[in-house]
């Protein structure tokens, strides 16, 4: 009845976002930058919405960011996520200027908008999933 499946894993072949996940497999948090106007482009796609350029290049982030907001989930219908409850997810504003949605390894009491986090990696064979961990405030 309550068979626990694993975390749903991303496609490494999806045309826009496959490169992001292939970088993640090497523990790199990747994002795109427009070669014409330098705008940061995220989530991954093939065009720059600012200047309409089709020439983008991949960059690697330092992996540091600030939590814009978050929530700790206590109820879920999916077997894997139900087994993980309570677990925290959030929107993280990465220092290079893009916003990532991801899991945050923090309790409900620890996770708050404004806390600093850094990327860490959860291995699943040929793919790694970013999970952010809180870093001590200076």
């Amino acid at each position, binding site marked *: 009845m309550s068979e626990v499946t694993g*975390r*749903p*894993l*991303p*496609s490494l072949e*999806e*045309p*826009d*976002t496959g490169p*992001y*996940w292939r970088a993640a497999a090497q523990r790199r948090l990747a994002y795109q930058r427009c070669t014409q106007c330098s705008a*940061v482009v*995220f*989530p*991954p*796609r093939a065009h720059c919405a600012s200047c309409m350029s089709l020439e983008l290049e991949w960059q690697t982030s330092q992996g540091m960011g600030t939590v*814009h*907001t*978050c*929530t*700790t*989930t*206590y*109820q*879920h*219908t*999916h077997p*894997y*996520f139900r087994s*993980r409850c*309570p677990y925290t*997810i*959030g*929107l993280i*504003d*990465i220092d290079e*200027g*893009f*916003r990532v*949605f*991801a*899991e945050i390894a923090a309790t*409900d009491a620890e996770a*708050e*908008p*404004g806390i600093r986090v850094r990327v860490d990696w959860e291995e699943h064979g040929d793919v790694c*999933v970013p999970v952010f961990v809180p870093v001590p405030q200076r």
Partner: protein
Amino acid sequence: MTGGRAALAGVYEYPLRVAPGVSALQIKAESAIRALTASGLRLADVDALYDAGEAMTGPGLAMPEYLGIRPALIDSTAVGGSSFEFHIAHAVDAIEAGRIRVALLTYGSTARSSKRSIGTEARLTSVPDPLRNMEDPYGLTTIGSYAMVAKRHMSEFGTTPEELAEIAVVARYHALRNPDAVAGLTAIGMDPVPLAAADVLSSRLISSPIRRLECCLITDGGGAVVLVAPELAADLDVAPVWVLGSATGVDYSEFGHSVLTTSAARSGPAAFAQAGVAPADIDIAMIYDSFTITVLTILEDLGFCAKGEGGAYVRDGRLRFDRPGGPALNTDGGGLSSTHPGMRGIFLLIEATRQLRGESTAQVPAARLAVAHGNGGRLGSRSAGGTVILGVN
């Protein structure tokens, strides 16, 4: 006012919140027949059909045949719970352009009888699109997405759980006056009793900070709305309710853009400007209440109060139908305590119309102006919003 851009004619709300053995399509068709009959119109008069596709795929092809009509215009815009406000905005444009005269909107769902867990599903995709391929590994639920908005609002502005709970308290207060809502609460196993903020705050956490009684119900249900050209309004069997303004928008989360701003920040001012009225003029506020935070942020974005002041604005029962100082909020009981079969937008139009005809169970005396704001998708992720301003002479 002497008239508007188009007139709402008959409206119908399917009364049952639990309807075993009935299909969503049957709810849509029955509602269509009853709304058209109330208008004094025939199915064959419908020359524009609007359908959000909630009851079948490819509704543009199949719904005309199922209903038995051959409309000149078909619009299957599907933006979740806000689809119906988008449909009104599109239909008004088509009426003004002289292309159509009678538009029909229908909705039907058996979410309750089908045992759908709308709020706590992950909705994983088998063939990922790029956006979902970034999100699916983390299992974001609908409630979780809205919870991120609530968490930010509380953190940035000091909004309290008690203030958010007030929205659910007011909804229940109104629902208990609505016999269909009372029967519905009983049918889904909830006691039809008044709520206090303490009741809301002691219900279980679903996704922090959202608790169970801050979440809309999951019901069966549906309805229909008929919109006609101004020249037909005088011949209706019902008093016309005029569409004075309508506008739509979309929004999504990205770096540098707070999750606290919704598409209502654009559709609201545009619709109010078109109508030539201001939020302070509004008697009835039908605001999509999937969750308490949905109402709070949309009230701010529509201009009922400044961004960040929603918590103070909703305090002390200000939005009850029998209190001065603000519009009456969700007087049918809302998605929180009356009905939410998955897409609530059509019920906002239906109850606003009932209020402006003096037919609500929580009637505001001499109500003249109403706003219906539908919200679709997920605040905190990506969402759509449609604002419709309605009025009577």
